């Protein structure tokens, strides 16, 4: 009986377009995404002055995170929304890591290791929080895959840190 009760609910949750009232977690993720988008927008102009592609990258990140806000609120339990939000934010975190721990890979600042500031550090922490929150809304299979992937990346980074000089740190 219990199984029968759960299955229809799971099917409902996974169905695109299913309306759900967003809970605290979804509101938190949406709020964090909004703040991150706003920060990226506010730094777009200064990066554009360095190189148009830097500015475009910041603009793109901001737009993505801004679009996540209504998507999370509108479809708080959609796996697709969750996976897209997780993938996008992990990409942003990856670029943050690469530019601070290795160097900027493209453009006129190729090779420059960016400094870590309070704003970018806090923004990245917020993006990781978004990832964690959205993980909780994915299906157990997706969640398991993503969490194990993150574990492997984390282990790899720490191993690299202590065995090579690839990371500037």
């Amino acid at each position, binding site marked *: 009986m219990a199984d029968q009760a759960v299955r229809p609910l799971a099917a409902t949750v996974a169905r695109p377009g299913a309306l759900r009232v967003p809970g605290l977690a979804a509101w938190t993720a949406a709020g964090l995404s909004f703040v991150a988008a706003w920060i990226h927008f506010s730094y777009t102009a200064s990066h554009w002055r360095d190189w148009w592609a830097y500015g475009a990258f910041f603009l793109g990140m901001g737009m993505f995170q801004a679009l996540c806000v209504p998507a999370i609120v509108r479809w708080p339990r959609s796996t697709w929304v969750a996976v897209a939000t997780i993938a996008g934010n992990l990409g942003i975190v990856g670029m943050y890591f690469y530019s601070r721990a290795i160097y900027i890979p493209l453009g006129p600042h190729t*090779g*420059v*290791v960016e400094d*870590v500031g309070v704003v970018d550090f806090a923004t990245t922490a917020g993006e990781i929080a978004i990832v964690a929150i959205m993980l909780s809304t994915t299906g157990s299979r997706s969640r398991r895959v993503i969490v194990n992937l993150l574990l492997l990346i984390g282990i790899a980074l720490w191993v690299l840190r202590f065995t090579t000089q690839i990371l500037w740190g």
Partner: protein
Amino acid sequence: MQLSRRDLLKVGLFSSAALMLPAERVARTQLAIANRMPQSALPEPFSLPFAKPPVLAPFAQSLDTDYYLIEQRAQQLPILGPGKPATTIWGYNGITPGPTIVANRNRKTVVRQINRLPEQHPAWDYPVWTSTHLHGSASLPEYDGYASDITTPGFGKDYQYPQIQDARTLWYHDHGVHHTAENAYMGLAAMYILHDQHELSLPIPHGEYDVPLIIKDAMFDSNGELVPDTHSDSGIYGDVILVNGVPWPDMPVEPRKYRFRVLNASVSRSYDLSLNTGEPLVVIGTDGGLMPHPAPCAHVKVGMAERYEIVIDFSKYKPGTQVVLENISPKNNIDYDTTNVVMAFTVKDHYTSLANNEISQDLNPNMDVMGLTMRDVSLDDDTGKPIIRNMRFERRDSHWTVNGQTWEDIVNSDYNDVCAKVKPNDVEIWELDNPGGGWFHPVHIHLVDFKILDRNGRAPEPYEVGPKDVAYVGENEVVRVIMRFEHRQGKYMMHCHNLVHEDHDMMTQFQVGDATRDVDLHDPIEADKCKEVGKLGDLYTFPKPDNSGHGKGGGGISVPAAIPAAPAAPAPQVRVLGSVKKSKPKRKVKKVKIKAKPKRKVTAKKKVKAKAKPKAGARKSPSKRALRSKRLSGGGRG
């Protein structure tokens, strides 16, 4: 929430790597300068008197040669002024900047450099060696301060300088492989002035109105000791601007023209100098001597190792006026509230002489290098086209490289690899290319003077239209220079003069002529190695007195009236620095590791290599990897 505790731990491990690894670098920097002397404890700008480095008297003089004796040694000096803690420095004859050598064209000099430094840096924990480069001199390769031609403590070397070039401002400084930045930061740098008849005949300021300004930045901890932080091999930046070893000094000047020989002796900081009054700085000379014509400039950007001779006319100001030499910091320096001013000049109400108080419109119109044009460029034997080489200075795989090579690659090739093989007396154009946007590279080409043709296709700055040996290669900039490879044959270095970049490992070499190492009479390492101090022999053998009545020394050989019994007694240091402090308070040496960066795991093989004590003048100097291993193997002392 459906995340289990296990999931949270997994995400937490990822988060820790993503957030903590990038932040680690910043944390290390903050730790390194945590003990920095607060601004409130630093001397007030313009509160300390200006001082000139003393001129070094020759140890002996023969008909055509002056002999000098210099010891490199540690000393404690009251750099921050009276009442402040003393600072341990390494100086030529125990002072920093070291004593100025004044030489004349066509009169040779021999400088005996003796390394009396400790075997190991007491605080920064690296094995000490030096190599002395006379920057701006067309010296033979074995006397050019080749980085791997090292002199360890207890050893010495007689450097011979030809003085065959035009009058110019040179400087001698350390060039020891992989530790130039630390050694120079500790104080191993000094000016060397070369005069010639033409320059002395010009009515430009001479004598006491010809003043060295050796500018350097430093950071001090609360005990007065120098703080080393390389910002992850990017550069060393201080919050105190020293001029001739004095923080932000005030110089009383007469109401007339002065000629200042500005040398940027900083490890990594560039300056953009201007006067707070808006009056121009009239540039009359560059690295390689006088410019063809003077250039009045609102500001002058001075990269590391660049020299500019600048005339300032103080007759325009009322007595008592304080004129401030300001620094509009070029980008990609690390600035502090205190780095925007350099020094001040206070105008006196009288002058003692108005002789040589002019700026000639024709200063050095016949200088060969300034006449070089595209038509002079030698043609490539194979293609028949003018020889133009591209030298790319970039960061690659956590190393500073020149055309993708590091100095360690040169070492590993047994010093055979070269970035260019040039025919003697050929004229070539080199494109100095900095594709990076996050840093600038003052590029120094040894042996030659060059003329800057253009910057990214634009004309050079007005103040650099003179003979140069360092080119400020700015962010995303290509600077084209033209030069003739004359005077000497052999291997010479080219490198970034951000000394941290140079050490890690933005340095290469080129060869004039085609001698291979086994037949090269002027091999920079083998031709004239350093020797133990006891085996150096006499620097100069004074002739026995005779009764021929030829006067002192006999045979035209003269001996200075005052031969220093021991090189550079401490007295001038105190006088130069304007302090009355003479006692040396004993202090516990604080161990600060210059690079806390943990390195890759050390293999047993590397450890063995690291433990090997570097032999002075060894054919193969220790590789950078070995040095890192050395630091690791002694890591407990850091």
